[in-house]
């Protein structure tokens, strides 16, 4: 929906997403015919307009071209997925600005319109949001690894027990009082990669890797010397224990399953 036409109505939930791999917003620029031809071009002035999807992406659009223009809104979709209230509709605000400011800047940007800004009720050329998703049942991680099965190259991403024995560490002697050790867990195994068609369309997506997506802290009681006398002190070490493993691309938010 366009900001100026925003009526505040709620969209019906469209689908249950496992993982937003990519999102594309397609906007239709209709052919305005003679109006473009009447546009007086200043020498050196730009005949392009900058179309922005507020805060997420932008691209240049020639005022002489019509047809569908695609904008990569993957980041917006991913951000929307991470929101605590995913039922809220995803709102993308589109604006058209001058390509560059200055004495030669033309008012070309004022000529760019989108089909959805046409007569009310016209269904043709309405904005389209494409969501490319993966099913987490196949592409996500499993919970804990099977302790009976050895981890091989084919093991699907899972959380494996790993005990850290603090008592066995020389530097911890007479210093770390509690705990004697702890279950840290680690993420092992591999993740299924998205189909090649998607990696071609969104090349910035790195390979999906098995990573620790949720961690907890580890409290400890240590002995510190103050004024030559030992004193027990509590300290909390962040991100020491893995709570959950997930499959995610480098730099991308960890996918989360949404309620329908």
């Amino acid at each position, binding site marked *: 929906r366009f900001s100026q036409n925003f009526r505040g109505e709620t969209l019906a939930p469209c689908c249950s997403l496992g993982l937003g791999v990519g999102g594309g917003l397609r906007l239709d620029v209709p052919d305005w015919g003679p109006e473009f031809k009447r546009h007086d071009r200043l020498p050196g002035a730009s005949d392009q307009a900058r179309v922005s999807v507020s805060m997420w992406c932008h691209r240049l659009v020639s005022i002489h071209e019509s047809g569908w223009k695609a904008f990569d809104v993957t980041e917006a979709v991913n951000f929307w997925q991470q929101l605590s209230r995913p039922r809220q509709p995803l709102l993308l605000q589109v604006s058209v600005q001058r390509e560059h400011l200055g004495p030669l800047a033309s008012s070309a940007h004022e000529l760019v319109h989108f089909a959805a800004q046409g007569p009310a009720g016209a269904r043709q050329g309405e904005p389209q949001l494409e969501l490319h998703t993966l099913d987490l049942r196949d592409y996500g991680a499993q919970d804990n690894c099977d302790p009976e099965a050895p981890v091989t190259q084919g093991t699907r991403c899972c959380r494996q027990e*790993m005990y*850290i024995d*603090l008592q066995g*560490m020389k*530097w911890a002697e*007479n*210093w*770390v*009082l*509690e705990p004697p050790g702890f279950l*840290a867990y*680690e993420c092992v195994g591999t993740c299924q990669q998205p189909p090649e068609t998607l990696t071609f369309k969104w090349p910035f997506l790195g390979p999906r890797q098995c*990573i*620790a*997506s*949720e*961690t*907890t*802290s*580890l*409290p*400890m*009681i*240590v*002995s*510190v*010397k103050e004024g030559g006398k*030992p*004193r*027990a*002190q*509590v*300290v*909390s*070490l*962040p*991100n*020491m*224990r893995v*709570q*959950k493993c997930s499959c995610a691309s480098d730099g991308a938010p*960890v996918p989360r399953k949404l309620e329908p």
Partner: protein
Amino acid sequence: MTEEQILGSLLQQLHLREVPVLGKGDVEELVISAHVRAQYVALLKRSHGAPSRGK
């Protein structure tokens, strides 16, 4: 998780540059007060209940 990572995190939290040297005698005369124990248990309970989002 490596031994170095745990040690590094511990030194960072305590604002120390190196591992303090404590003898066996230091530990033997040390008494962990009820207050310190209660603080430790409270943190343990909290860490089990509230996972933090990773990167």
